[in-house]
């Protein structure tokens, strides 16, 4: 009974408030929030290099087979080098060869400092990309490009660590062999900390000079500083 009475009062109060005015206010506020979608970045392509040093990405970690030596390697073997991480496959008609070519051009601009860089080319098509195929392929571009081949689990672990998508659909009667992969390149500093994200390096107009300059800056970091979080360095 008491609840009923109180409820009655509440109902009256609820209805007395003018929903119309409130709705209007809320919509205005919503539109103000909406304008937070900045005009400038809409339509403008993403920057050619994104600084992700402060984005809290996990350190580079993997276990795979190195195509050059045929032996197992881990991310630790690449500590001390600036590492580029890229996913592709050797039968790729356009994106992968163009990207690796641009990486080779970038390395060329670094001169003697290029030895401080390793580009890790991880195949998402390990069935067709044997270690021999992978080795022959990466050597077409530059000696600093390392072909990596993992088991299904090793590949899935590394890809999901950096939210990389890939898929391989074997050929059927009506469909050719199809491989899907990402375009982005993650760049890690000498301590394995993710520092840069290059959205793509797959066109004739890619920013080679800018990429080389960014890599040079990472190479110039003293080892101690490279270990520090971005905001402190």
């Amino acid at each position: 009974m008491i609840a009923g009475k109180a409820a009655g009062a509440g109902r009256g109060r609820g209805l007395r408030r003018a929903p119309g005015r409130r709705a209007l206010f809320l919509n205005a506020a919503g539109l103000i929030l909406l304008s937070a979608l900045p005009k400038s970045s809409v339509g403008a392509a993403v920057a050619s290099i994104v600084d992700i040093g402060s984005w809290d990405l996990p350190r580079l970690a993997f276990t795979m087979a190195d195509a050059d030596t045929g032996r197992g390697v881990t991310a630790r073997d690449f500590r001390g080098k600036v590492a580029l991480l890229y996913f592709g496959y050797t039968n790729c008609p356009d994106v992968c060869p163009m990207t690796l070519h641009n990486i080779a051009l970038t390395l060329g601009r670094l001169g003697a400092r290029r030895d401080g860089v390793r580009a890790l080319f991880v195949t998402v098509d390990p069935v067709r990309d044997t270690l021999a195929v992978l080795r022959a392929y990466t050597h077409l571009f530059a000696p600093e490009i390392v072909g990596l081949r993992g088991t299904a689990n090793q590949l899935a672990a590394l890809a999901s660590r950096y939210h990389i998508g890939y898929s391989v659909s074997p050929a059927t009667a009506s469909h050719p062999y199809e491989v899907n992969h990402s375009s982005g390149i993650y760049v890690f500093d000498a301590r394995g900390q993710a520092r840069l994200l290059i959205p793509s390096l797959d066109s004739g107009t890619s920013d080679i000079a800018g990429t080389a300059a960014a890599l040079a800056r990472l190479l110039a970091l003293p080892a101690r500083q490279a270990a520090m979080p971005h905001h402190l360095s």
Partner: protein
Amino acid sequence: MTPAESVARPHAMADFAVPAVIVALGAIVDWASAAHPAAMPLWLPYDFSWFAWLGTWLFLWWYVRGFYLLPPSERPHPWQLVSFMLGMLLIYAVLQTRYLYLAEHEFFLNRIQHIAMHHLGPFLVALGLARAPLRKGIPAPLARIVFSRPMQRLLAPIQQPIVASLLFVGLVAFWLVPAIHLRAMVSERLLWTMNWTMVLDGLLFWCLVLDPRPFPLARIGYGVRAAMAFAVIFPQIAIGARIVFSRHDIYPYYSICGRFFDSISPLYDQLVGGMVIWIPPAMMSAIAVLLVVNHLRLHEEKAPPPLDPRAARIAAMAANWTGRP
């Protein structure tokens, strides 16, 4: 209190056994997803998180436990139990199964994930009237914290209607700001923050709007609840339309990290994603308004009989055209 306790006794074994099984299964799935990610079944977590695992299964267990501990007259309807379970399983499906991978690699699938974890999932959970079963089902020491006064006071400001509505659409808009979206999708920690702020906000909002009780028991009156459900339609339409009609790829993340469907172009993916923000939330709001009106109707029909002796005759006459008994 004593009848409930006597009911609780036979379940004493389950009180320890079920959570122990949940933790043990979690440990197995945790190990398997790290050691054999490629071999995980589609319906198991492929990116294991204890928070998500325990959050899903413990709350499901506590609800079911509380449901059967309540005297039958106080239990929610079995349909409400089903609704709660469906909502929880939907949130589990889009946040923990392999669907998470799809949502990370196609914009429109990402938007469907957000609808499921911010709208439909919490909506179904709210319809499950979890309050009474959880109060009964959560172990007493934990329940004392969850339902404590300071906790309620902590929630009060964000359950204020204007704040709750602003938070509801504000979070949708915030995580869709292109620069923030890119960062959230790339950074594991921010992705986790985005997903769980959406889930928790969805739960808070829909539990507030879909509360069937009248004002002093619920935080706000029926009219304000309907107004809230209605008001959030328009900003979401505006955000959806803004994305549908943009002629450029606003969200480059999906190209950078790989799209799931090669045959869908980035712009088409974006257009469909915009429609997902535009249409289903508006439909859900419309359903919510109807449910609020229905709650008001049910409440009024339960109102105590009037004291006026002539009331019955007046009501009988009125029933000819109102249709109410």
